[in-house]
């Protein structure tokens, strides 16, 4: 016998609720229940960061959270950062700087970049590296990713 739990949350600005198994992970909830496959799953061990989403405005790795723990929270996935096919400024910067190779890490990287920009802190290149250290790029395309984030910070006058 397994009891179901009801999860009510805000997903990319809209109310979303579902009855799910209590042990379901948030990453599976987002992909399989809500059908938003932009959030990737790389390692399922909390290491790679591909599954990064925003929970109440803060980045978390959705493979380390039960969907039940996200009840009542505000979740933003990569789909929530852009309007339809129109790219947002972070996506444009990644595009322009060739910060995407296979693209597997990209949604997580962009969510992390979005969070980093939302902090409004002045950062150096080294600090950008530290900020994205929870996101692994298995294509090892870090330089271009950091270039893209640097450019975004520069545009805001936040690059040291």
């Amino acid at each position: 016998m397994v009891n179901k739990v009801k999860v009510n949350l805000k997903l990319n600005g809209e109310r979303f609720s579902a009855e799910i198994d209590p042990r379901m992970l948030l990453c599976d909830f987002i992909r399989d229940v809500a059908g938003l496959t932009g959030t990737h799953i790389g390692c399922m061990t909390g290491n790679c960061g591909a599954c990064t989403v925003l929970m109440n405005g803060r980045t978390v790795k959705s493979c380390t959270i039960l969907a039940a723990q996200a009840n009542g929270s505000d979740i933003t996935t990569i789909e929530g950062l852009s309007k339809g096919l129109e790219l947002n400024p972070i996506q444009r910067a990644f595009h322009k700087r060739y910060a995407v190779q296979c693209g597997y890490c990209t949604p997580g990287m962009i969510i992390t970049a979005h969070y980093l920009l939302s902090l409004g802190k002045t950062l150096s290149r080294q600090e950008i590296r530290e900020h994205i250290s929870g996101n692994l790029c298995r294509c090892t395309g870090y330089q271009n990713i950091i270039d893209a984030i640097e450019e975004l910070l520069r545009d805001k006058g936040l690059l040291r």
Partner: protein
Amino acid sequence: MVSLYDIQVFTPRTLEEALELLDKMGGRTKIIAGGTDLIIQMRHGLAPRRDLINIYGLRELRYIREEHGMVRIGALTTFSEIAASEPIQKHVPFLAEAANTIGSIQIMNKATIGGNLVNASPAADSLPPLYVLDASVKIVGRKGERTVSIERFYKGYKKMDIAPDEILAEISFKIPDTDGRGLFFKHGLRLGDAISVVNGAVWMRRREGVIEDVKISLGAVAPTVVRARRSEEILKGAKPDDENLRQAARAVIHDISPIDDVRGSAGYRAEMAVNYVYMALKRLVMGR
């Protein structure tokens, strides 16, 4: 990888409710807070698969308060909150620094200090600062609450003074003297989500050319975090010259008992512990 298919999760709305649930099913359940480590441990079969009591949403356990010369941290406070907290940065910057090195930002945003404590890894980065602060933990149960010093709380490798029907609710410590200085260090194998090979904290107060008081703690080099008491004894009342610092650093081996594992050999750990304690003492003495 183990599936969690037969696990049930209960989400109490208040601490009271959580304690009631624990009272009923304490031995058969496990408490989940941030879950950043527990979920992975369970999936890898490293933690027994038990039904979960999810306390992550209990706001009453999420706070940082400064009162009567004490700092009190609710068990569900995240490391991001601790690292950014004004009273923590002001009074115990080395604890803020430790909070900052717990893991990547995604982990800091979710992982809680109480979770880190009951996870009881001897390599937990939040512990060495709490050991030099002589911190205490507040344990609550349906029958009441009690306070235990952090050193007494850990009784051995992953062994804690907490019953299945109790919850670790708060961590508190006295604000240290303003004329002392503390420092946290961590030796990991990579930046980011690295588990410490050796970590530790040192707190020191000098007066009139001698070391008046000093506290040294080390993690990942024994079944629990330890205080390097022999080293502390050598330094108390001594001149902070290079010879004394070296002798004290070498003495840490009396209080540690490192093991070999994937992250390093026992010999390597011992050597790193000595070196890091020396460097930390030196930095404090040089005022850097």
